[in-house]
Structure formats: C-alpha cells, structure tokens
C-alpha cells in the first residue's frame, strides 16, 4: 500500500504528464490544421467539436452516437469530396483493416508477427492471378486469397506454439522477407509476372452493381465511390468480427493466455490451439486487406509487400493502441497521413519560435526533416502515450477534470487499476478497452 505522500507525488507526475500529453496533442492537431490536407483538417475539427459536445454526456449515450455520426459522415462524404480524397479514405480504410488484423494477434492474444506484409501479399497476388489472368470474380478471389492466407497463418502459428516474444518475432520475420521474394521467382513468373509486377486492367475489377447505379440525386455511382464503399464495408465488417471475437469466450481465452500463459493453462485453455487460432483469424483478415490493397493500387509487385509494410503495420498498432479497434483506426490513419504528408510538413526553420533559434544551415535541412519529425513524433508518442493514441484518448476521457467540470456522469473509471504491488510494476493489462478495465 502506498502512503499519502507518494500518492501525491504520483498525482503530480500524472498531472504533469497529462499536460505534456495535451500539449503534444494540440501541437499535432495544429500541424494537421495548418497542413494542406482538407480531409483530415475537417475530420479533426469535427471530432474536436464532437468531443466538446460529448464530454458532458453519459458515455453510454454518446458512444453509439459517435459511431453513427462517423459512419453517417463516411457514407455521405464521397458525394462532397474530390476523387483523390475519396481514394485517400479508401487507402486509410485498407490500412485500418490490416492494422485490425495485426492488432487482434498482438494486442489480443499477445503473439507477435513481423510477417503480416507477407499475408497481405498472398491476398494481393490471389487477386492478381485469379482476377486478372483467369477472370474470376474479385469477391471470390479475395475470399480464396484470404483462405490461403489463413492457411499460411496456420503454418505461421506453429512456431508460436513453442516460441514467444522476440524469438517468435524473428521466426515470423522470415516470412516477411521470404514470401514476397517468391513473387520474383523465375519458375512462377508465368503467374506472378516476376519482378516486373502486374498491373490490373479495370475491366476485371468489380463494377458498380446495377442496383447501386442509380442513387438519389440523379447521378450514377462512380467506380471510385463504389470502391470506397466496398472497402469501408470490408473494414467495418473486420472491425465488427474482431470486436465480437474479443468479447467471446475464445477472445477472452486469448486475453488470458496473453496475460499469463501458466494461468491460462490452469484454467484449461489449450495454449497451442488458441495461439494457432489467433494466427489463422488474423491471417484471414490480413489476406482480405491485402486483396483490397491490390484493388486500390490496381497492381501487385513483390516490393510493395516488403518488410517495410510489416513494420509500418506494426507501428500503426503500437502507436494507435494495442487491443483496441479505435487504436487500429487512429494508428493506421496517423501513420499513413504522416507517411504521405512528410514532404508537406513545415521545415524546422519555418516553425514559429524554433525557426528563429535555428542557425541558417538548417535551411538546407528540409529533405531530411521529414524523417526526423517522423522519428521524433514516434518517440514522443511512445513516451507520453505508452498505450498509444487510443490509450491517451481514454485517459483524457477518464481524467478527473471531466468529473470536476461536469459532475459524475456515466460510469467513472479510475485512471489506472489500483496497483497493489510496488509502484514501478506496469498496470496489469495492456488492454485499453474500457470494458475490460475493472470498474
């Protein structure tokens, strides 16, 4: 048990880190708002307004409300946005799907995979070969590709039965390195088109179905709008599946084996079976997202699915928040946005205050500035938001000021579960879902 004095010190540190957190969030939002990206700027402003309105509301009321509003926005958005903005949303959706699949594996079941890029490659090549060369329907090809990926996921799960942590990471790393390279193998070049890659003809990709062709407003649904809706549906479905899975018996078994394998075993959980199951389900969703990625890019190439893709997806879920759908969404959008907007970010010399302090020689810096920003941001986020963006969001939501200002509305959840051990021990769960936190 902690005495009062250390509790005060702890509270001070907490206050300090929360204000630092808020500063970083506001600076980040500021950069987004001054950037050229109209899409994200709008989203950020709308979200901020929504949050201000929502804070006094009880959570049970506003959570479904926020979901409904978000989906409402996404369904109307394509009709107001430019084509490239809709394509950008599609891009985000694909990566959200990939992040959800990996988050299910790492966040929920505690198994590590550095090979998810390869699973995406399977989905992508399935579409490339089946749809483009044999004119199979895209939907069927995506499904078969996902099943194939699930098969590989099963094989990938086998070492997981015996390996944990870094050892498993390296074992799965092998897949990330080797599998995409097979696409270049001369013996299978007939199908994969080797290192030249394969570009898709739009003729064989899904067309807007007849019943969707006439939409209210007297215009037809464009192909890119349909592609967005299709991707959005697949992403929402994956999210729903993983969310439900997490609340199911199986999901809870996975959480149990993540938190303590011996304890899970004591409770009668078959470790090998559940670990492999986690890999199979995760790989299936990854395969689907790979199919959609190739659909979005209208091409497949071995290099698209290289190690950097695996690492990027991993960064998404760690930055976003482990075992959280919201985390996958925020992380994927954040990393994608940063990757695609690196060159548009202001140079260090153009920043207010800091710019005046920097010597002139930083004027030639901008080319590399992007990479430095990127790295610094990741480090800052990891320090200030150890549970990722979603974790920070929940933390702010549960922060006492809310109670101070608005009274005790909705179920109040303590900031951290009461720590009964030594104070330096990490909180018992990496789960940022408020449902699982004891109340």
């Amino acid at each position, binding site marked *: 048990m902690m005495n009062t004095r250390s509790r005060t010190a702890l509270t001070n540190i907490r206050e300090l880190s929360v204000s630092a957190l808020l500063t970083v969030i506001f600076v980040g939002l500021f950069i987004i708002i001054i950037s050229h990206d109209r899409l994200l700027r709008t989203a950020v402003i709308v979200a901020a307004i929504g949050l201000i309105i929502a804070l006094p509301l009880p959570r049970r009321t506003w959570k479904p409300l926020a979901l409904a509003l978000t989906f409402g926005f996404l369904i109307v958005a394509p009709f107001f946005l430019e084509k490239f903005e809709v394509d950008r949303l599609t891009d985000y959706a694909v990566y959200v799907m990939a992040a959800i699949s990996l988050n299910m594996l790492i966040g929920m079941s505690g198994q*590590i995979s550095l090979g998810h890029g390869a699973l995406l490659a399977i989905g992508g090549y399935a579409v490339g070969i089946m749809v483009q060369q044999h004119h199979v329907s895209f939907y069927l090809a995506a499904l078969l590709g996902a099943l194939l990926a699930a098969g590989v996921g099963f094989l990938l799960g086998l070492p997981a039965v015996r390996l944990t942590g870094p050892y498993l990471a390296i074992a799965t790393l092998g897949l990330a390195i080797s599998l995409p390279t097979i696409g270049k193998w001369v013996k299978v070049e007939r199908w994969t088109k*080797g290192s*030249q890659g394969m570009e898709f003809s739009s003729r064989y990709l899904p067309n807007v179905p007849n019943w969707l062709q006439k939409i209210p407003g007297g215009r037809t649904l464009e192909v890119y709008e349909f592609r967005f809706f299709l991707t959005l549906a697949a992403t929402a479905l994956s999210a729903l599946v993983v969310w439900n899975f997490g609340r199911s018996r199986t999901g809870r078994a996975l959480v149990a084996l993540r938190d303590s394998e011996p304890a899970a075993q004591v409770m009668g959980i078959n470790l090998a079976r559940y670990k492999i199951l986690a890999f199979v389900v995760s790989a299936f969703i990854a395969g689907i997202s790979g199919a959609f990625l190739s659909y979005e890019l*209208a091409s497949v190439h071995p290099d698209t699915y290289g190690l950097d893709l695996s690492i990027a997806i991993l960064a998404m879920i760690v930055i976003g928040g482990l075992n959280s759908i919201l985390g996958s969404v925020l992380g994927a959008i954040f990393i994608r946005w940063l990757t695609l907007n690196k060159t548009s970010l202001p140079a260090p010399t153009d920043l207010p205050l800091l710019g005046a302090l920097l010597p002139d020689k930083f004027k*030639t810096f901008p080319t590399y500035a992007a990479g430095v920003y990127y790295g610094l941001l990741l480090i800052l986020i990891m320090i200030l938001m150890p549970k990722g963006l979603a974790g920070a969001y929940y933390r702010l939501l549960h922060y006492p000021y809310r109670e101070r200002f608005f009274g005790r509305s909705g179920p109040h959840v303590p900031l951290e579960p009461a720590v009964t051990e030594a104070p330096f021990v990490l909180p018992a769960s990496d789960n940022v879902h408020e449902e699982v936190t004891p109340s």
Partner: protein
Amino acid sequence: MFGTSVREHRVVFAAMSVALVFAVSCSSNNNSSKSNAAVTAAATKVASAAASAPAPAASAAASKAAGTAAVAAGGSPVASGAVAETFKGPGGNAPWVNVADGCHGVKAPAGAEAPKASDTGVTPTEIKLGTTFALSGPTSVYSPIIKTIQDCFNAVNADGGIYGRKLNLDVEDDQYIAANTVPLTKKLVEETKIFADTSPLGTPTNTAIFAYMNEQKVPQLFVVTGASKWADNPKQYPWTFGFQPDYLTEGQNYAKYIQQTPALKGKKIGILYQNDDYGKDYVRGLKIVLGDKGTADNPIVDEETYAATDADVSSQITNLKAKGADIFYLVATPAFAGKALKAAADQTWHPTVVMNSVAIASNLPDLSGGNANIAGVIADNYYHTSNETSDPSVKAVQDFLAKQDPGLQLSNFAVVGYMLGQVYVETFKRAGVNLTRDSMIKAVQSYKGFVIPQLLPGITVNTSESDHRPIKCIKLLKYGTDGVTTYFGDNLCP
C-alpha cells in the same frame, strides 16, 4: 506474479519497433548497398556506375576519335549537322538547334502569341510539374537525380523561364513504396493538378501508376527505371516514356555484338547472371536476338545463376568451363563480377568475357584480383561518368552544380539528372508557347538525333509515336592490361 516477462517483452518490442521505423525513415543519406533485389534495374545500374571509372584520358581520346558529336570545349555545344526537320517551332517553322545546351531560359520568338492558361497545370506564368521519388529510405541514394533536375529548373526560372513560364516542380517522397506512390500521384494529378509527372523513380512504383496516368491522360515522362515494359506498347500507353537504355535493350545489343563479330563466330556462350529482375532482363534481351538456345554459330551451352546473398560463384564457373563455353556473358554486380573473373583465372578458364555495364566499378581490378584478370573484358556504357571530369561535358555539370547547388556533389546521378533536365527544357521549348499535354507529347516524340553532350559520342535521343525509348544505343568498352578502359567500335543500337 505470472506474465511479467510477457509484458516486458512487449515493452522491449515496442521500443524496438519504434527504433526500426525511425531507422528506416531517417536513413535518407544512407549509402545503400544492394540491400535487396528490389532495387530497380535502372537504379542498380546508376548505383554501380557511381563508382565506375573508365579512365578519363582514354575516354576523352575516344570521344575525339569518334568525332560524331559536336561538343566544343567548356561543354557548350556548337550546332551539329542534323536538325529536327520534322518539328516546327511555335512561331512557325524556326528549326531548332538539335543539341542540348545546358539549363537556360527560353524566350518566346518575336511575334509569338502571349502565353495563356492553355492546359491543366499551365498558367501564363507557371507550369506545375510533380513527381514521386525516394527522398528517404535506402533507395534515396538516387535522389541527386531529381535534385539536379530541380536545380536545372531553378536555373531556367532564374533565366526568365520558358516562354515566360516558371517551372514549378513538386517532388513527393514515396520512399520507393508503391503503396505510397499511388495516393501521392493521385494527389499531384487531382489536387495539385500538375501538367506532367516528370521522372518518377522505380519499377514497382511506376507499375502502380502506369495504367492510372494513361487513363487520366497525364504525361508520365522519362521514368527513371531500367524495366523495359514502359515502352513496350506505346499505342496502349501513349503517355509514358522511358529514358535510358533498358537492360533488355542492352542484352539485345550484346547479342548483336556477339553475332556480328567475326572472331566470335562458332564460339559457345555460357551465362552467369544474378537471379533477380535485372539479371533476368539482360538474359531475356540476349535470347530475343539469339533465341532460347542461341544460334547455330553461337549456341548457349550453359546458364548459371547466383543470388545476391551467395558467398561464392566458383562452382558456377567450374560448370561453365566444363560445358565448354568460350564466351562468358557475365551479368553481375561489381562484387560478383570480380569473384567470377577471379575464379575463372584461378581455374585457368580464358573465355571472351562480355560483362554488363552494372559491373564497371573503379575497384573492379581489386575485386577481381588484379588487372591481369580483367584484361580484355568487354563492357558498355552510354554516358560520360562523373569520373571523366576532364571531359568538357562532365566539367559542365560540375560547374553547373558548383554555381547552382554547392551542396550537391558531382556524381553519376547528377550527370543523369543534368541530362534529363536539359531534355525537359528542350521538350518544353519544342512544345511551344501554346503548351498542352498533346503538344508536349508531340514534342517528346519529335526527337531525331538530338545530341546531349553528356552522352557518349554518337549516342543521341530518338523518339517517335511508336518509339518511347529515347536512348537505345550503347558504346562498347574494353579493359586493357593496365585496367584502363577504352571505348571501341561503332555504337550498338537495337
């Protein structure tokens, strides 16, 4: 309690991943080694050529001997004989000087109409251009190419622009990842509304936007890649143009050399190639001319491969020797070319070696165990490398960089970028005051024997509606007993 170690793993893991991502994204000025086979053919070529050193004196002598190019001292060319007869200037029929002349502004001819907003991305005062290039990540070693192009455009703008329009180039960093290239290119085309995509880098990246650019009818000009497919079907893809000789073409050129050299008649060919995109393109090119099994005069008796991760190629050399090959078609990076040549010497196998241009590195004599082992090796190239600083054309690039962008070192990338910059200037000039995407494409297709001083003598830019490969010819070079290279023979063209 249980599980503590699992949690610790996760923390370590998170830190590890952050470090990894950081390292990947910040490695912009990394000296990329051939990290994987992913590097595009073109890229590989330029990379290895960066270290190449055909001796300056020899090449300068060769360039004078060839005598076809009209390059005067100081890099400023004088008029050559050939003029693009098929192309008329904006003011009517003013014929253009058919030689690149550095990065200067272009003044509108007297009596020409005033520039107006004639097409997407074109205003009376500006032409919006954009491209995707790897500015960070391991492939960013190629970024001097786009930087030199940008420097060239800056020089043009400072000199009054082209017909009063400034060239405004927006370079987006795609890190050589196709999944980034697509959204970035869509942004450039649909939001920034660029007039043309100028020299995007890479095979996977260009593959992903290839169909899109042609659907959108946006020029995708002079892509920086060694893959051959861009120009395979100009009817279907009229908006895309390559630039340098691709490996396929180079392979074809070697095949013709073998066929046409009387001394090589009746000799059997043995091949060693790196088992990846670039290696296979070379072999495919050879087989297009000679057939899958070679010709009756020059049968292909053996094909050996190696992976970029192999330690040694001596067993492949043993096989090649055992099969009785007399011509050794060597498609390898400098390190492996060196190993192969050394192994051949060790096993007292003395074939005629025909080596790809990728392997021409200044340290090849060391890698192959001495000048004796590389004497007589035949290779090729198409432009003056940055080592030939005594050549006026390379000196011109050096002077340009010193003036325009002192932070940028002279390199083969810079030479390539300078060549591209000049071709862009000439193309905009030819496309006329009333600049449209159609007039631009017509201008790109108008080159007949256009001379760029940095190209080897006699190698010129040639395009047409059905030919989207501007540079197709190469010049052979031979290693002497002192390890110095000499250009020889006629230019080889497909």
